[in-house]
């Protein structure tokens, strides 16, 4: 993946390459690298691109973000009730809002919000 083997277009020959054989070997080596990279990509197959750690992180995040939304909302509602004496409305309202926040978390993390640009209503 790391583009460390990028061929520099101009400086390949170096300052006055005395050896004509050098260029030939360099070219051969480059094709060899290219072939190896291509082979690697094919060996990875269709799975190679999808199995990046980032997508795995996304999969692991989604469920917990949703659960955390509900838990967080319920906890906030309970705290609100406990300290402001709004029982039971704090818990009810904030639990529902936590549910909304959970769905919102999942939508954002799955890239749903970015995909469409502006929301359809606006």
């Amino acid at each position, binding site marked *: 993946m790391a583009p460390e083997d990028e061929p520099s277009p101009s400086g390949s020959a170096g300052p006055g390459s005395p050896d004509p054989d050098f260029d030939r070997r360099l070219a051969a080596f480059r094709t060899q690298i290219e072939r190896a990279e291509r082979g690697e990509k094919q060996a990875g197959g269709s799975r190679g691109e999808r199995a990046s*750690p*980032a997508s*795995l*992180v996304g999969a*692991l*995040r989604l469920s*917990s*973000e949703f*659960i*955390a*939304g509900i*838990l*967080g*909302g319920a*906890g*906030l509602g309970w705290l609100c009730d406990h300290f402001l004496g709004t029982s039971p409305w704090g818990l009810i309202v*904030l639990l529902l*809002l*936590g549910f*909304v*926040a*959970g769905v*919102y*978390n999942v939508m*954002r993390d799955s890239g749903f919000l970015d995909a469409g*640009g*502006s*929301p359809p*209503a*606006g």
Partner: protein
Amino acid sequence: MVHADPISQFDIVGISGPLFRVGGAPVAFTNSALLMAIIVGLIVAFMLVATRGSMVPGRLQSAAELFYEFTAQTVRESAGNEGMRFFPFVFTVFIFVLCSNVLGIIPGSFTVTGQIVITAALAGFIILMVVFYGFYKHGLGWLRLFVPPDVPGWLLPMLVFVEVVSFWTRPISLSVRLFANMLGGHMAMSIFAYFVAALLFGGVWAVISPFPLLLVVALVALELLVAVLQAYVFAILTALYLNDALHPHH
């Protein structure tokens, strides 16, 4: 160490007697503290030995460089080049969580990250850092984080409130995810390990006792994967949240 029930492996046991008291509660050197001391000692020893800096890296130095490169790449991708000022912090968090997850797999050991108080303390610290650094860097303008762009006016108050609740759930999801993964995985391992013993001493049933044993072996492999992945998730989310402190624009 034999666990009769799957949850007793998470018991906090004092190794020393109460050393001193804080607000009437005794403070002792516990198995959790011992494991954390071992983890920190291992990390420090590893880093000291591995970063003596020879031009041709040996095995340990290569491993340390791998950790460095990997974390640096994660931070750069999530929080940009500006985020690299938090690199030492993210690296510390990552390697601490990674070591405690992996060391916890060793039978008879103790899983520090299987304690909600540890993961909640880590997550709470991270979120407080995000909040304080956000206000320090952007002043009140940091609150733009909670205002999503391109939203019709009548929906905005509601969405801002949802954004605030959503931000509040971040430390919860961060801490509960790591804690629950460690707790659940280790309990499953313990339960199936208990099956092995129960079947082995159950007369004829001893014949099928290798099956749960095989499952335990497979679970250990799975737990190793989960341990590394959860440490990575923790690190990448730390970097992502720090990115919100640096760049509050959506």
